[in-house]
């Protein structure tokens, strides 16, 4: 019955977005999202407890809207997929509890899946790739919670983490820098906009983990060849602002924003492209909320072209956290014939990308 075109409902609650998406195979029927972002503004970042409270209130209304929007009933659905990790623990538990209740009440199979791999799963939707996911595929995921470069052998069974941030996510660095500069939250859009008016070479901010001792060589890679670090960059911005203030000078906000953004984007793209070249990746998908950043898209495009890599960026609504990506990955997992996860699995805030779908009763911990 489900061979070929499974109708899958996907649930996402790993951060501040409550998402319910419905797909039929690779066809997107709805991507309904309720965000609690406005409630986090005054804190300058996502507050897990506030996000979790919002998920509880948003879940059933979001589900109802998604079903109406897609024009399907729960009876029509073949399977349910839910993000089991990685993400904020309390937030994950709301979506997982809801998904389990939905599975129990409808009798439909439930698949507990990996949020990061789902960001790649959106590549199946909306004509992002005309003929499905290509061979030699990599994914660069950049958001408020993640900065990762992945190699995708098979979306449902073979994903490898090549590199990731060892401290702050890139989006988090934007938010913290925006706070230092008094620009509000979220930091990404405002810094991107101000950066256009500033000089990206005005201040040379550090590119974390770029020294030879971390990089090594292709033959003998260092310990962090494809990894990033952004916490030192944030501190460098703070020191820079303090130096201007101590000297009684006006803080050149646009120059700092431009120089900060250039440091982030330079190190993200140079390491991502290096990882692609050294792993035979010729197709790169850019995902996550920071994929909307103008300079990141521009420089990733330039460097991919120079390296003979084809860059693909899904529609913005599919790059940020959403339920459609969860449903899309769920559909691929079903078509691969993987077993459902049952209703007794646990959430895992640090689920590794190698755990694409949880086995029954597990939580993906080694």
């Amino acid at each position: 019955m489900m061979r070929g075109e499974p109708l899958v409902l996907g649930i996402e609650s790993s951060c501040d977005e409550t998402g319910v998406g419905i797909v039929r195979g690779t066809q997107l029927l709805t991507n309904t999202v309720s965000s609690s972002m406005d409630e986090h503004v005054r804190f300058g970042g996502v507050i897990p407890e506030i996000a979790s409270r919002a998920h509880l209130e948003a879940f059933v209304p979001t589900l109802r809207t998604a079903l109406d929007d897609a024009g399907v009933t729960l009876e029509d659905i073949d399977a349910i997929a839910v993000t089991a990790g990685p993400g904020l623990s309390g937030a994950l538990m709301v979506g997982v509890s809801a998904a389990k209740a939905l599975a129990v009440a409808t009798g439909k199979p439930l698949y507990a899946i990996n949020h990061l791999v789902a960001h790649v799963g959106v590549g199946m939707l909306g004509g992002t790739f005309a003929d499905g996911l290509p061979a030699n595929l990599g994914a660069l995921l950049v958001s408020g919670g993640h900065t990762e470069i992945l190699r995708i052998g098979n979306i449902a069974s073979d994903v490898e983490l090549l590199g990731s941030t060892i401290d702050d996510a890139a989006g988090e660095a934007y938010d913290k820098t925006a706070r230092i500069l008094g620009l509000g939250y979220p930091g990404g859009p405002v810094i991107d906009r101000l950066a256009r008016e500033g000089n990206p070479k005005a201040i040379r901010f550090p590119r974390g983990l770029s020294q030879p001792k971390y990089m090594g060589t292709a033959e003998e890679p260092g310990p962090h060849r494809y990894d990033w670090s952004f916490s030192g960059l944030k501190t460098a911005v703070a020191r820079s602002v303090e130096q201007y203030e101590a000297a009684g000078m006006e803080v050149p906000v646009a120059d700092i924003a431009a120089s900060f953004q250039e440091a982030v984007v330079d190190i993200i793209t140079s390491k991502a492209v290096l990882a692609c070249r050294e792993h035979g990746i010729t197709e790169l998908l850019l995902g996550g909320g920071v994929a909307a950043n103008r300079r990141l898209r521009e420089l990733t495009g330039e460097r991919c072209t120079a390296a003979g890599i084809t860059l693909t960026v899904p529609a913005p609504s599919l790059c940020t956290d959403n339920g459609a990506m969860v449903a899309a990955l769920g559909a691929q997992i079903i078509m691969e014939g993987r077993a459902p996860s049952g209703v007794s699995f646990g959430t895992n805030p640090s689920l590794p990308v190698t755990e694409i779908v949880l086995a029954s009763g597990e939580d993906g911990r080694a």
Partner: protein
Amino acid sequence: MLLLALDTSAAATVALLRDDVVVGRFGSADTRSHAEVLAPAVQGILADAGVPGADLDGIVAGVGPGPFTGLRAGLVTARTLGFVWDVPLFGVLSLDALAFDAVAGEAVEAGSAFLVGTDARRGEVYWAAYRAAGDALPELLDGPHVGTAASLPKDQPLAGRAASLYPDDLDGLPAFTTSDPDAASLARVARLRLLAGEPLLDTAPLYLRESDAKVPGPRKRATA
């Protein structure tokens, strides 16, 4: 009347009540596995009883107060089940279940006042004051509140786990010093209210505490 009740304000508990008979029940051993154990418990209880969800007359949810993450697991489960089965949702103060147990167990005399208290973690308790009312449900006099055990009214016996956590501050009712809210009692409270035509709560959670988040102050400066 067929009621499915869930309380996750302390342990995860589930019960199926047919009229006044408990036909299925589950209680978790710990207070930190609600998201894992709740759905299998509901599934197992209904399957064992041979009851399709849509046959329920209502789903009763304990609305707390209780630790946030576990409480939400129960509430989102109840709301989702209610939505899919198109069954009415009823909220009951979780402490009402403990008050019901204390009176039903004849631990307090009719007309006397007593307290109910559960573990709020961080050195505090969730509590409320009740009066035993003979055959009727215990009457809520004050609460629910969250506070230190030392801040509770003195000279009143207390039912609930708070008594064993803070024995120096609280006068525990014997046999109820390690009790947590139980879904079967929660269902009985709901049933009696429904039979009496009394209003029930909606399923809004009683957190009683804000998130710990602080609005950030001015930037720290390393240089003067």
